[in-house]
Protein backbone atom coordinates (compact mmCIF):
# COMPACT_ATOMS: atom_id res chain seq x y z
CA UNK A 1 0.00 0.00 0.00
CA UNK A 2 1.15 3.52 -0.79
CA UNK A 3 4.19 1.95 -2.41
CA UNK A 4 5.74 1.04 0.94
CA UNK A 5 6.77 -2.30 2.27
CA UNK A 6 5.07 -3.76 5.32
CA UNK A 7 7.55 -2.49 7.86
CA UNK A 8 7.61 1.10 6.55
CA UNK A 9 3.84 1.14 6.23
CA UNK A 10 3.66 0.05 9.85
CA UNK A 11 5.94 2.89 10.93
CA UNK A 12 3.93 5.40 8.90
CA UNK A 13 0.63 4.19 10.34
CA UNK A 14 2.06 4.28 13.84
CA UNK A 15 3.20 7.87 13.40
CA UNK A 16 -0.16 8.77 11.84
CA UNK A 17 -2.04 7.22 14.71
CA UNK A 18 0.13 8.94 17.30
CA UNK A 19 -0.25 12.28 15.51
CA UNK A 20 -4.03 11.96 15.25
CA UNK A 21 -4.51 10.87 18.84
CA UNK A 22 -1.87 13.21 20.24
CA UNK A 23 -4.39 15.61 21.85
CA UNK A 24 -5.63 12.67 23.91
CA UNK A 25 -2.43 10.70 24.38
CA UNK A 26 -0.44 13.70 25.50
CA UNK A 27 -3.01 14.69 28.13
CA UNK A 28 -2.97 11.66 30.42
CA UNK A 29 -3.43 13.65 33.62
CA UNK A 30 -6.67 15.28 34.75
CA UNK A 31 -6.62 19.02 34.20
CA UNK A 32 -6.99 19.88 37.86
CA UNK A 33 -4.42 17.43 39.20
CA UNK A 34 -0.90 18.31 40.26
CA UNK A 35 0.45 16.27 37.39
CA UNK A 36 -1.32 18.43 34.80
CA UNK A 37 1.89 20.37 34.31
CA UNK A 38 3.28 17.29 32.57
CA UNK A 39 0.50 17.30 30.05
CA UNK A 40 1.64 18.24 26.58
CA UNK A 41 -1.67 17.99 24.79
CA UNK A 42 -2.31 21.66 24.21
CA UNK A 43 -2.22 23.09 20.67
CA UNK A 44 0.75 25.41 21.00
CA UNK A 45 3.12 22.69 22.17
CA UNK A 46 1.78 19.98 19.90
CA UNK A 47 2.20 22.30 16.95
CA UNK A 48 5.82 22.79 17.91
CA UNK A 49 6.28 19.01 18.13
CA UNK A 50 5.16 18.40 14.59
CA UNK A 51 6.66 21.56 13.07
CA UNK A 52 10.10 20.83 14.47
CA UNK A 53 9.47 17.23 13.52
CA UNK A 54 9.21 18.38 9.90
CA UNK A 55 12.37 20.45 10.31
CA UNK A 56 14.29 17.46 11.70
CA UNK A 57 12.90 14.99 9.14
CA UNK A 58 14.21 17.25 6.39
CA UNK A 59 17.55 17.82 8.08
CA UNK A 60 17.92 14.08 8.40
CA UNK A 61 17.69 13.68 4.63
CA UNK A 62 20.83 15.76 4.35
CA UNK A 63 22.79 14.85 7.49
CA UNK A 64 21.48 11.37 8.12
CA UNK A 65 21.89 10.14 4.57
CA UNK A 66 24.83 12.06 3.12
CA UNK A 67 26.68 12.85 6.35
CA UNK A 68 27.08 16.54 5.44
CA UNK A 69 26.85 18.41 8.76
CA UNK A 70 25.14 21.73 8.07
CA UNK A 71 25.18 24.38 10.77
CA UNK A 72 23.02 26.78 8.85
CA UNK A 73 19.62 25.22 8.39
CA UNK A 74 17.91 27.62 10.72
CA UNK A 75 18.44 30.25 8.03
CA UNK A 76 16.01 28.39 5.77
CA UNK A 77 13.49 28.15 8.57
CA UNK A 78 13.78 31.89 9.12
CA UNK A 79 13.44 32.65 5.42
CA UNK A 80 10.34 30.46 5.32
CA UNK A 81 8.80 32.36 8.22
CA UNK A 82 9.48 35.75 6.65
CA UNK A 83 8.01 34.66 3.32
CA UNK A 84 4.90 33.30 4.98
CA UNK A 85 4.28 36.48 6.95
CA UNK A 86 4.75 38.57 3.82
CA UNK A 87 2.23 36.42 1.98
CA UNK A 88 -0.23 36.99 4.80
CA UNK A 89 0.44 40.71 4.68
CA UNK A 90 0.15 41.09 0.92
CA UNK A 91 -2.12 38.37 -0.40
CA UNK A 92 -4.33 36.61 2.05
CA UNK A 93 -4.66 35.32 5.57
CA UNK A 94 -5.30 31.94 4.04
CA UNK A 95 -2.24 29.89 4.95
CA UNK A 96 -1.98 28.01 1.63
CA UNK A 97 -0.18 30.74 -0.35
CA UNK A 98 1.95 31.48 2.71
CA UNK A 99 3.08 27.88 3.09
CA UNK A 100 3.64 27.36 -0.63
CA UNK A 101 5.75 30.49 -0.93
CA UNK A 102 7.79 29.68 2.17
CA UNK A 103 8.75 26.33 0.67
CA UNK A 104 9.62 27.85 -2.70
CA UNK A 105 11.67 30.73 -1.30
CA UNK A 106 13.54 28.48 1.11
CA UNK A 107 14.18 26.13 -1.79
CA UNK A 108 15.65 28.90 -3.97
CA UNK A 109 17.69 30.16 -1.06
CA UNK A 110 19.09 26.71 -0.42
CA UNK A 111 19.99 26.24 -4.08
CA UNK A 112 22.27 29.29 -3.85
CA UNK A 113 23.77 28.49 -0.46
CA UNK A 114 24.04 24.80 -1.24
CA UNK A 115 25.71 25.40 -4.58
CA UNK A 116 28.48 27.41 -2.93
CA UNK A 117 28.84 25.40 0.31
CA UNK A 118 28.87 22.02 -1.38
CA UNK A 119 31.98 22.87 -3.32
CA UNK A 120 33.75 21.87 -0.13
CA UNK A 121 33.13 18.94 2.17
CA UNK A 122 33.82 17.94 5.75
CA UNK A 123 34.53 20.66 8.26
CA UNK A 124 34.80 23.31 5.55
CA UNK A 125 31.23 22.62 4.56
CA UNK A 126 30.09 23.00 8.17
CA UNK A 127 31.90 26.30 8.55
CA UNK A 128 30.62 27.62 5.21
CA UNK A 129 27.02 26.89 6.10
CA UNK A 130 27.61 28.43 9.51
CA UNK A 131 29.03 31.55 7.86
CA UNK A 132 26.05 31.82 5.52
CA UNK A 133 23.58 31.43 8.36
CA UNK A 134 25.30 34.05 10.48
CA UNK A 135 25.43 36.35 7.48
CA UNK A 136 21.69 35.95 6.92
CA UNK A 137 21.07 36.55 10.59
CA UNK A 138 23.16 39.73 10.60
CA UNK A 139 21.52 40.98 7.43
CA UNK A 140 18.05 40.32 8.80
CA UNK A 141 18.93 42.44 11.78
CA UNK A 142 20.48 45.33 9.85
CA UNK A 143 20.19 46.22 6.18
CA UNK A 144 17.20 44.08 5.44
CA UNK A 145 15.12 45.77 8.10
CA UNK A 146 12.59 46.99 5.49
CA UNK A 147 11.85 43.34 4.77
CA UNK A 148 12.41 41.78 8.17
CA UNK A 149 11.50 44.64 10.48
CA UNK A 150 14.79 44.12 12.34
CA UNK A 151 14.74 43.42 16.04
CA UNK A 152 11.00 43.87 16.45
CA UNK A 153 10.27 41.10 14.02
CA UNK A 154 7.82 41.03 11.16
CA UNK A 155 4.16 41.17 12.12
CA UNK A 156 0.83 41.51 10.41
CA UNK A 157 -1.31 44.58 10.90
CA UNK A 158 -4.81 45.66 10.00
CA UNK A 159 -3.55 48.13 7.44
CA UNK A 160 -1.88 45.43 5.32
CA UNK A 161 -3.28 45.27 1.77
CA UNK A 162 -4.18 41.54 1.61
CA UNK A 163 -5.46 41.88 -1.95
CA UNK A 164 -7.15 38.50 -2.13
CA UNK A 165 -9.11 38.82 1.09
CA UNK A 166 -12.61 40.26 1.02
CA UNK A 167 -13.94 42.68 3.59
CA UNK A 168 -15.23 39.96 5.88
CA UNK A 169 -12.22 37.65 5.66
CA UNK A 170 -10.90 36.44 9.00
CA UNK A 171 -8.09 38.54 10.41
CA UNK A 172 -6.24 35.51 11.74
CA UNK A 173 -4.38 32.88 9.67
CA UNK A 174 -6.95 30.43 8.41
CA UNK A 175 -7.54 27.60 5.99
CA UNK A 176 -10.51 28.67 3.85
CA UNK A 177 -12.12 30.31 6.84
CA UNK A 178 -11.15 27.79 9.51
CA UNK A 179 -8.92 29.79 11.81
CA UNK A 180 -5.71 28.22 12.99
CA UNK A 181 -6.40 29.06 16.60
CA UNK A 182 -9.94 27.72 16.66
CA UNK A 183 -10.34 24.53 18.60
CA UNK A 184 -12.89 22.13 19.97
CA UNK A 185 -12.60 21.06 23.57
CA UNK A 186 -13.80 17.72 24.84
CA UNK A 187 -14.46 17.43 28.56
CA UNK A 188 -14.44 13.92 29.94
CA UNK A 189 -14.85 13.98 33.68
CA UNK A 190 -11.88 15.93 34.94
CA UNK A 191 -9.96 15.38 31.72
CA UNK A 192 -9.94 18.02 29.05
CA UNK A 193 -8.80 17.49 25.47
CA UNK A 194 -8.29 20.24 22.90
CA UNK A 195 -8.46 19.56 19.18
CA UNK A 196 -7.22 22.54 17.22
CA UNK A 197 -7.35 23.26 13.51
CA UNK A 198 -3.77 24.51 13.48
CA UNK A 199 -2.43 21.36 15.05
CA UNK A 200 -4.19 19.06 12.64
CA UNK A 201 -3.01 21.06 9.65
CA UNK A 202 0.57 20.79 10.91
CA UNK A 203 0.16 17.12 11.74
CA UNK A 204 -1.22 16.40 8.28
CA UNK A 205 1.71 18.16 6.62
CA UNK A 206 4.12 16.37 8.93
CA UNK A 207 2.67 13.04 7.82
CA UNK A 208 3.03 14.04 4.17
CA UNK A 209 6.61 15.11 4.87
CA UNK A 210 7.30 11.88 6.72
CA UNK A 211 5.81 9.83 3.91
CA UNK A 212 7.96 11.59 1.30
CA UNK A 213 11.02 11.04 3.47
CA UNK A 214 10.28 7.29 3.63
CA UNK A 215 9.99 7.18 -0.15
CA UNK A 216 13.28 9.02 -0.50
CA UNK A 217 14.99 6.70 1.98
CA UNK A 218 13.89 3.61 0.05
CA UNK A 219 14.52 5.01 -3.43
CA UNK A 220 17.57 4.71 -5.68
CA UNK A 221 18.17 8.39 -4.92
CA UNK A 222 18.29 7.61 -1.19
CA UNK A 223 20.68 4.75 -1.88
CA UNK A 224 22.96 7.14 -3.76
CA UNK A 225 22.89 9.59 -0.85
CA UNK A 226 23.98 6.85 1.53
CA UNK A 227 26.69 5.95 -0.95
CA UNK A 228 27.90 9.56 -0.83
CA UNK A 229 28.30 9.25 2.93
CA UNK A 230 30.09 5.95 2.61
CA UNK A 231 32.63 6.50 -0.17
CA UNK A 232 32.70 9.47 -2.52
CA UNK A 233 35.79 8.21 -4.30
CA UNK A 234 34.09 4.96 -5.30
CA UNK A 235 31.06 6.94 -6.45
CA UNK A 236 33.17 9.06 -8.77
CA UNK A 237 34.86 5.98 -10.18
CA UNK A 238 31.48 4.35 -10.66
CA UNK A 239 30.41 7.06 -13.07
CA UNK A 240 28.29 8.96 -10.58
CA UNK A 241 28.43 12.71 -10.13
CA UNK A 242 28.14 13.34 -6.40
CA UNK A 243 27.53 17.10 -6.64
CA UNK A 244 23.94 17.07 -7.93
CA UNK A 245 23.07 14.33 -5.45
CA UNK A 246 24.28 16.30 -2.47
CA UNK A 247 22.80 19.52 -3.81
CA UNK A 248 19.42 17.84 -4.29
CA UNK A 249 19.54 16.53 -0.72
CA UNK A 250 20.53 19.98 0.54
CA UNK A 251 17.69 21.69 -1.31
CA UNK A 252 15.13 19.13 -0.19
CA UNK A 253 16.15 19.57 3.42
CA UNK A 254 16.11 23.35 2.91
CA UNK A 255 12.54 23.13 1.60
CA UNK A 256 11.51 21.06 4.61
CA UNK A 257 13.00 23.77 6.82
CA UNK A 258 11.10 26.38 4.82
CA UNK A 259 7.87 24.44 5.31
CA UNK A 260 8.53 24.31 9.04
CA UNK A 261 9.20 28.05 9.08
CA UNK A 262 6.06 28.76 7.05
CA UNK A 263 3.98 26.69 9.47
CA UNK A 264 5.47 28.44 12.49
CA UNK A 265 4.41 31.75 10.99
CA UNK A 266 1.00 30.36 10.05
CA UNK A 267 0.29 29.27 13.60
CA UNK A 268 1.44 32.55 15.06
CA UNK A 269 1.84 35.25 12.40
CA UNK A 270 5.18 36.75 13.23
CA UNK A 271 8.77 36.14 12.22
CA UNK A 272 11.96 37.23 13.94
CA UNK A 273 15.64 37.00 13.11
CA UNK A 274 16.41 34.95 16.24
CA UNK A 275 14.91 31.95 14.45
CA UNK A 276 17.94 32.06 12.14
CA UNK A 277 20.61 32.12 14.81
CA UNK A 278 23.17 29.37 14.74
CA UNK A 279 22.10 28.00 18.10
CA UNK A 280 18.78 27.31 16.39
CA UNK A 281 20.66 25.40 13.72
CA UNK A 282 22.43 23.52 16.49
CA UNK A 283 19.09 22.56 17.96
CA UNK A 284 17.92 20.76 14.83
CA UNK A 285 21.24 18.93 14.68
CA UNK A 286 20.66 17.81 18.25
CA UNK A 287 17.11 16.67 17.52
CA UNK A 288 18.31 14.57 14.62
CA UNK A 289 21.20 13.03 16.51
CA UNK A 290 19.27 12.50 19.70
CA UNK A 291 16.58 10.61 17.82
CA UNK A 292 19.03 8.81 15.57
CA UNK A 293 20.56 10.29 12.42
CA UNK A 294 19.90 8.24 9.32
CA UNK A 295 16.88 6.49 10.79
CA UNK A 296 13.32 7.18 9.70
CA UNK A 297 11.71 7.62 13.07
CA UNK A 298 14.66 9.22 14.87
CA UNK A 299 14.18 12.86 13.92
CA UNK A 300 10.48 12.80 14.83
CA UNK A 301 11.29 11.29 18.21
CA UNK A 302 14.18 13.70 18.76
CA UNK A 303 12.09 16.76 17.94
CA UNK A 304 9.27 15.64 20.23
CA UNK A 305 11.67 14.78 23.02
CA UNK A 306 13.52 18.09 22.93
CA UNK A 307 10.45 20.27 22.58
CA UNK A 308 8.63 18.40 25.34
CA UNK A 309 11.45 18.67 27.81
CA UNK A 310 12.14 22.25 26.84
CA UNK A 311 8.56 23.01 27.76
CA UNK A 312 8.47 20.98 30.97
CA UNK A 313 11.86 22.05 32.23
CA UNK A 314 11.16 25.69 31.53
CA UNK A 315 8.01 25.53 33.65
CA UNK A 316 9.62 23.98 36.69
CA UNK A 317 10.60 26.56 39.28
CA UNK A 318 11.77 26.35 42.88
CA UNK A 319 8.21 26.22 44.24
CA UNK A 320 7.45 23.20 42.08
CA UNK A 321 10.66 21.56 43.20
CA UNK A 322 9.91 22.20 46.86
CA UNK A 323 6.50 20.67 46.28
CA UNK A 324 8.06 17.53 44.90
CA UNK A 325 10.61 17.01 47.60
CA UNK A 326 8.51 18.21 50.54
CA UNK A 327 8.44 14.66 51.92
CA UNK A 328 12.15 14.92 52.67
CA UNK A 329 13.67 16.45 55.80
CA UNK A 330 14.05 20.21 55.35
CA UNK A 331 17.83 20.31 55.03
CA UNK A 332 17.92 17.57 52.42
CA UNK A 333 15.00 19.10 50.58
CA UNK A 334 16.74 22.45 50.26
CA UNK A 335 19.93 20.75 49.21
CA UNK A 336 18.28 18.76 46.43
CA UNK A 337 16.34 21.77 45.21
CA UNK A 338 19.58 23.77 45.09
CA UNK A 339 21.24 21.02 43.05
CA UNK A 340 18.42 20.75 40.54
CA UNK A 341 17.71 24.46 40.34
CA UNK A 342 20.37 25.38 37.74
CA UNK A 343 19.03 22.80 35.30
CA UNK A 344 15.38 23.80 35.23
CA UNK A 345 13.43 26.94 34.52
CA UNK A 346 15.74 29.34 32.75
CA UNK A 347 18.48 26.73 32.98
CA UNK A 348 16.97 24.59 30.24
CA UNK A 349 19.82 25.42 27.90
CA UNK A 350 22.30 24.03 30.38
CA UNK A 351 20.39 20.74 30.40
CA UNK A 352 20.24 20.88 26.61
CA UNK A 353 24.02 21.33 26.35
CA UNK A 354 24.65 18.46 28.75
CA UNK A 355 22.21 16.28 26.87
CA UNK A 356 24.00 17.15 23.65
CA UNK A 357 27.30 15.98 25.10
CA UNK A 358 25.89 12.86 26.70
CA UNK A 359 24.20 11.75 23.51
CA UNK A 360 27.30 12.28 21.37
CA UNK A 361 29.53 10.56 23.93
CA UNK A 362 27.40 7.60 24.90
CA UNK A 363 24.71 7.18 22.30
CA UNK A 364 25.96 8.37 18.90
CA UNK A 365 23.21 6.32 17.26
CA UNK A 366 20.53 8.16 19.21
CA UNK A 367 17.34 6.96 20.85
CA UNK A 368 16.45 4.60 18.01
CA UNK A 369 19.75 2.77 18.39
CA UNK A 370 19.35 2.80 22.15
CA UNK A 371 15.91 1.26 21.78
CA UNK A 372 17.25 -1.37 19.42
CA UNK A 373 20.00 -2.22 21.87
CA UNK A 374 17.50 -2.69 24.67
CA UNK A 375 15.25 -4.69 22.35
CA UNK A 376 18.15 -6.96 21.41
CA UNK A 377 19.02 -7.44 25.05
CA UNK A 378 15.52 -8.68 25.80
CA UNK A 379 15.35 -10.85 22.72
CA UNK A 380 18.64 -12.45 23.57
CA UNK A 381 17.49 -13.21 27.08
CA UNK A 382 14.39 -14.87 25.70
CA UNK A 383 16.13 -16.87 23.02
CA UNK A 384 19.12 -17.79 25.13
CA UNK A 385 17.80 -21.18 26.29
CA UNK A 386 17.10 -22.24 22.70
CA UNK A 387 20.36 -21.09 21.16
CA UNK A 388 23.01 -21.94 23.70
CA UNK A 389 25.86 -20.47 21.68
CA UNK A 390 24.09 -17.12 21.72
CA UNK A 391 24.32 -16.92 17.93
CA UNK A 392 21.36 -14.99 16.67
CA UNK A 393 19.92 -15.39 13.22
CA UNK A 394 21.58 -13.24 10.60
CA UNK A 395 20.13 -9.78 10.37
CA UNK A 396 17.58 -9.31 7.66
Amino acid sequence: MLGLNKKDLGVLLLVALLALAAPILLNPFPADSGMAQFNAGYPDLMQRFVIFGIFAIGYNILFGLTGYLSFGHAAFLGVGSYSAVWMMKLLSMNVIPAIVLSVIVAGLFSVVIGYVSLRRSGIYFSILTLAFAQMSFNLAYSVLTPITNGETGLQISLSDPRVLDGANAPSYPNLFGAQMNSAATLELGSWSFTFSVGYYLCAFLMLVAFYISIRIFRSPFGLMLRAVKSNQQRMNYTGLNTKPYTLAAFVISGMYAGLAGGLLASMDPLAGAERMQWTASGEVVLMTILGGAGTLLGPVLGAGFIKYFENIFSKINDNVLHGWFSFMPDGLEDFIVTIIHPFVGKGWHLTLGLLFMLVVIFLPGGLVEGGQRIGRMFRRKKSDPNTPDGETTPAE
Partner: protein
Amino acid sequence: MNILEIKNVNKRFGGLQALGNVNLNVAENTVHAIIGPNGAGKSTLLNVLVGKLIPDTGSVMFDGQSVLGRKPYEINQMGISRVFQTPEIFDDLSVQENMLIPCFAKRDGAFAMNGYNSVGSQQDVMDKAEEMLVEMKLADKRHMHAASMSRGDKRRLEIAMCLAQDPRLLLLDEPTAGMARADTNNTIDLLKQIKEERDITIAIIEHDMHVVFSLAERITVLAQGTPLVEDTPDNIKGHPKVREAYLGESQVAA
Protein backbone atom coordinates in the same frame (compact mmCIF):
# COMPACT_ATOMS: atom_id res chain seq x y z
CA MET B 1 42.75 -2.19 -33.01
CA ASN B 2 43.91 -0.05 -30.12
CA ILE B 3 41.33 0.85 -27.53
CA LEU B 4 43.68 3.15 -25.64
CA GLU B 5 46.27 5.40 -27.26
CA ILE B 6 48.59 7.45 -25.12
CA LYS B 7 50.75 9.91 -27.07
CA ASN B 8 53.66 12.05 -25.83
CA VAL B 9 52.28 12.43 -22.33
CA ASN B 10 54.40 14.53 -19.95
CA LYS B 11 53.72 15.34 -16.34
CA ARG B 12 55.92 17.29 -13.97
CA PHE B 13 55.54 17.78 -10.22
CA GLY B 14 57.76 20.72 -9.43
CA GLY B 15 61.23 19.53 -10.32
CA LEU B 16 60.25 15.91 -10.72
CA GLN B 17 59.51 14.53 -14.16
CA ALA B 18 56.88 11.97 -13.22
CA LEU B 19 56.01 11.07 -16.80
CA GLY B 20 58.38 11.77 -19.68
CA ASN B 21 57.12 11.38 -23.18
CA VAL B 22 54.98 8.35 -22.59
CA ASN B 23 53.71 6.63 -25.72
CA LEU B 24 51.67 3.53 -25.12
CA ASN B 25 48.95 1.66 -26.96
CA VAL B 26 46.67 -0.95 -25.51
CA ALA B 27 45.08 -3.31 -28.04
CA GLU B 28 41.44 -4.22 -27.68
CA ASN B 29 40.62 -7.45 -25.85
CA THR B 30 44.09 -8.02 -24.48
CA VAL B 31 45.55 -8.10 -21.00
CA HIS B 32 48.25 -5.46 -20.90
CA ALA B 33 50.51 -5.19 -17.87
CA ILE B 34 52.47 -2.10 -16.94
CA ILE B 35 55.36 -2.88 -14.65
CA GLY B 36 58.26 -0.94 -13.30
CA PRO B 37 60.17 -0.18 -10.13
CA ASN B 38 58.83 2.12 -7.43
CA GLY B 39 58.58 5.71 -8.60
CA ALA B 40 58.54 4.69 -12.25
CA GLY B 41 55.35 6.67 -12.79
CA LYS B 42 52.86 3.80 -12.91
CA SER B 43 50.41 5.39 -10.53
CA THR B 44 50.77 8.80 -12.14
CA LEU B 45 49.95 7.25 -15.50
CA LEU B 46 46.92 5.51 -14.04
CA ASN B 47 45.71 8.73 -12.46
CA VAL B 48 46.01 10.46 -15.83
CA LEU B 49 43.90 7.75 -17.45
CA VAL B 50 41.06 8.06 -14.93
CA GLY B 51 40.99 11.85 -14.91
CA LYS B 52 42.46 12.43 -11.47
CA LEU B 53 45.51 14.17 -12.95
CA ILE B 54 45.78 16.26 -16.08
CA PRO B 55 49.07 15.87 -17.97
CA ASP B 56 51.11 18.91 -18.99
CA THR B 57 51.25 17.84 -22.62
CA GLY B 58 50.19 14.94 -24.81
CA SER B 59 46.95 13.18 -25.61
CA VAL B 60 45.07 10.21 -24.27
CA MET B 61 42.46 8.70 -26.57
CA PHE B 62 40.01 6.06 -25.45
CA ASP B 63 38.14 4.44 -28.33
CA GLY B 64 38.80 7.47 -30.51
CA GLN B 65 37.75 10.04 -27.90
CA SER B 66 40.00 12.18 -25.74
CA VAL B 67 39.73 11.60 -22.01
CA LEU B 68 41.77 14.64 -21.04
CA GLY B 69 39.94 17.34 -19.11
CA ARG B 70 37.08 15.04 -18.27
CA LYS B 71 36.10 14.30 -14.69
CA PRO B 72 36.58 10.78 -13.28
CA TYR B 73 32.85 10.03 -13.41
CA GLU B 74 32.65 11.11 -17.05
CA ILE B 75 35.58 8.89 -17.97
CA ASN B 76 33.96 6.01 -16.16
CA GLN B 77 30.76 6.56 -18.10
CA MET B 78 32.84 6.30 -21.31
CA GLY B 79 33.66 2.73 -20.33
CA ILE B 80 36.76 2.76 -18.11
CA SER B 81 36.43 1.18 -14.67
CA ARG B 82 39.09 1.20 -12.02
CA VAL B 83 39.95 -1.29 -9.29
CA PHE B 84 41.97 0.21 -6.45
CA GLN B 85 44.98 -1.09 -4.61
CA THR B 86 43.01 -1.30 -1.37
CA PRO B 87 39.43 -2.23 -2.23
CA GLU B 88 37.25 0.85 -2.49
CA ILE B 89 33.71 -0.25 -1.78
CA PHE B 90 30.78 1.22 0.14
CA ASP B 91 31.67 -0.06 3.59
CA ASP B 92 28.48 1.14 5.25
CA LEU B 93 26.15 -0.57 2.80
CA SER B 94 25.20 -4.19 2.31
CA VAL B 95 26.81 -6.30 -0.40
CA GLN B 96 23.63 -6.19 -2.43
CA GLU B 97 23.39 -2.41 -2.16
CA ASN B 98 27.01 -2.15 -3.22
CA MET B 99 26.15 -4.15 -6.29
CA LEU B 100 23.06 -2.08 -7.08
CA ILE B 101 24.90 1.23 -7.28
CA PRO B 102 26.96 0.51 -10.43
CA CYS B 103 23.88 -1.05 -11.98
CA PHE B 104 21.96 2.17 -11.44
CA ALA B 105 24.92 4.17 -12.71
CA LYS B 106 24.93 2.04 -15.85
CA ARG B 107 21.20 2.47 -16.44
CA ASP B 108 20.59 6.05 -15.30
CA GLY B 109 23.89 7.79 -15.98
CA ALA B 110 25.82 10.16 -13.73
CA PHE B 111 22.78 11.62 -12.00
CA ALA B 112 19.13 10.71 -11.83
CA MET B 113 16.53 12.17 -9.50
CA ASN B 114 14.78 8.89 -8.89
CA GLY B 115 13.54 9.68 -5.41
CA TYR B 116 10.02 8.32 -5.38
CA ASN B 117 10.17 4.70 -6.52
CA SER B 118 11.55 2.10 -4.20
CA VAL B 119 14.79 0.38 -5.08
CA GLY B 120 12.99 -2.96 -5.05
CA SER B 121 10.58 -1.81 -7.76
CA GLN B 122 13.42 -1.31 -10.25
CA GLN B 123 13.24 -4.87 -11.47
CA ASP B 124 15.77 -4.62 -14.32
CA VAL B 125 18.44 -3.26 -12.02
CA MET B 126 17.63 -5.73 -9.26
CA ASP B 127 17.95 -8.59 -11.75
CA LYS B 128 21.22 -7.33 -13.12
CA ALA B 129 22.69 -6.97 -9.63
CA GLU B 130 21.48 -10.42 -8.67
CA GLU B 131 22.99 -11.91 -11.81
CA MET B 132 26.36 -10.34 -10.98
CA LEU B 133 26.19 -11.51 -7.35
CA VAL B 134 25.54 -15.07 -8.48
CA GLU B 135 28.22 -14.95 -11.15
CA MET B 136 30.80 -13.64 -8.71
CA LYS B 137 29.77 -16.13 -6.02
CA LEU B 138 28.69 -13.40 -3.63
CA ALA B 139 24.99 -14.26 -3.58
CA ASP B 140 25.06 -15.90 -0.16
CA LYS B 141 26.69 -12.78 1.31
CA ARG B 142 23.95 -10.55 -0.17
CA HIS B 143 22.80 -9.07 3.15
CA MET B 144 26.20 -8.87 4.74
CA HIS B 145 27.59 -5.52 5.82
CA ALA B 146 30.32 -4.86 3.25
CA ALA B 147 32.79 -3.66 5.88
CA SER B 148 32.69 -7.00 7.66
CA MET B 149 33.81 -9.05 4.65
CA SER B 150 37.25 -10.55 4.27
CA ARG B 151 39.76 -8.69 2.15
CA GLY B 152 39.55 -11.25 -0.59
CA ASP B 153 35.77 -10.92 -0.74
CA LYS B 154 36.04 -7.15 -0.76
CA ARG B 155 38.34 -7.38 -3.76
CA ARG B 156 35.91 -9.75 -5.46
CA LEU B 157 33.03 -7.38 -4.76
CA GLU B 158 34.96 -4.40 -6.09
CA ILE B 159 35.75 -6.24 -9.32
CA ALA B 160 32.13 -7.35 -9.55
CA MET B 161 30.98 -3.75 -9.15
CA CYS B 162 33.28 -2.67 -11.97
CA LEU B 163 32.12 -5.49 -14.25
CA ALA B 164 28.46 -4.70 -13.57
CA GLN B 165 28.96 -1.57 -15.64
CA ASP B 166 30.15 -3.63 -18.64
CA PRO B 167 33.29 -1.55 -19.01
CA ARG B 168 35.35 -1.83 -22.16
CA LEU B 169 38.57 -1.21 -20.27
CA LEU B 170 39.23 -2.47 -16.76
CA LEU B 171 42.14 -0.83 -14.94
CA LEU B 172 43.63 -2.75 -12.05
CA ASP B 173 46.02 -1.05 -9.64
CA GLU B 174 48.12 -3.74 -7.97
CA PRO B 175 45.06 -5.90 -7.32
CA THR B 176 46.96 -8.46 -5.24
CA ALA B 177 49.03 -6.06 -3.12
CA GLY B 178 49.16 -7.24 0.46
CA MET B 179 47.37 -10.49 -0.28
CA ALA B 180 48.32 -13.94 0.91
CA ARG B 181 49.47 -16.37 -1.82
CA ALA B 182 46.17 -18.26 -1.82
CA ASP B 183 44.13 -15.07 -2.24
CA THR B 184 46.52 -13.93 -4.96
CA ASN B 185 45.99 -17.15 -6.89
CA ASN B 186 42.23 -16.86 -6.49
CA THR B 187 42.37 -13.34 -7.88
CA ILE B 188 44.47 -14.51 -10.83
CA ASP B 189 41.96 -17.25 -11.58
CA LEU B 190 39.09 -14.80 -11.29
CA LEU B 191 40.71 -12.40 -13.73
CA LYS B 192 41.49 -15.19 -16.16
CA GLN B 193 37.89 -16.31 -16.04
CA ILE B 194 36.65 -12.76 -16.61
CA LYS B 195 38.91 -12.44 -19.62
CA GLU B 196 37.64 -15.69 -21.10
CA GLU B 197 33.98 -14.92 -20.64
CA ARG B 198 33.83 -11.29 -21.72
CA ASP B 199 34.92 -8.94 -24.43
CA ILE B 200 37.02 -6.79 -22.21
CA THR B 201 40.41 -5.14 -22.23
CA ILE B 202 42.36 -5.30 -19.00
CA ALA B 203 45.23 -3.01 -18.12
CA ILE B 204 47.01 -4.04 -14.97
CA ILE B 205 49.64 -2.32 -12.92
CA GLU B 206 51.46 -4.83 -10.84
CA HIS B 207 54.52 -5.41 -8.76
CA ASP B 208 54.15 -9.14 -8.38
CA MET B 209 55.85 -10.80 -11.38
CA HIS B 210 53.98 -14.01 -10.70
CA VAL B 211 50.69 -12.21 -11.34
CA VAL B 212 52.06 -10.38 -14.37
CA PHE B 213 53.40 -13.44 -16.13
CA SER B 214 50.27 -15.48 -15.35
CA LEU B 215 47.95 -12.95 -16.94
CA ALA B 216 49.58 -10.53 -19.34
CA GLU B 217 49.65 -10.83 -23.08
CA ARG B 218 51.70 -7.66 -23.51
CA ILE B 219 53.95 -5.98 -21.01
CA THR B 220 55.22 -2.40 -20.91
CA VAL B 221 58.13 -1.69 -18.64
CA LEU B 222 58.16 1.82 -17.21
CA ALA B 223 61.28 3.34 -15.68
CA GLN B 224 61.72 6.90 -14.48
CA GLY B 225 58.50 7.95 -16.12
CA THR B 226 59.32 6.61 -19.58
CA PRO B 227 58.43 3.32 -21.28
CA LEU B 228 61.59 1.27 -21.56
CA VAL B 229 60.34 -1.64 -23.65
CA GLU B 230 57.07 -3.14 -24.70
CA ASP B 231 56.86 -6.79 -25.68
CA THR B 232 55.35 -10.19 -25.00
CA PRO B 233 55.96 -11.73 -21.57
CA ASP B 234 58.42 -14.27 -22.96
CA ASN B 235 60.59 -11.63 -24.54
CA ILE B 236 60.39 -9.36 -21.51
CA LYS B 237 61.66 -12.09 -19.18
CA GLY B 238 65.09 -12.15 -20.71
CA HIS B 239 65.36 -8.53 -21.75
CA PRO B 240 68.62 -6.96 -20.57
CA LYS B 241 67.17 -3.47 -20.14
CA VAL B 242 64.45 -4.80 -17.86
CA ARG B 243 66.96 -6.63 -15.74
CA GLU B 244 68.96 -3.46 -15.51
CA ALA B 245 65.94 -1.44 -14.40
CA TYR B 246 65.00 -3.92 -11.72
CA LEU B 247 68.58 -4.52 -10.71
CA GLY B 248 68.98 -0.80 -10.35
CA GLU B 249 66.04 -0.76 -8.02
CA SER B 250 67.37 -3.53 -5.85
CA GLN B 251 70.68 -1.73 -5.55
CA VAL B 252 68.93 1.42 -4.42
CA ALA B 253 66.86 -0.56 -1.99
CA ALA B 254 70.00 -2.14 -0.55
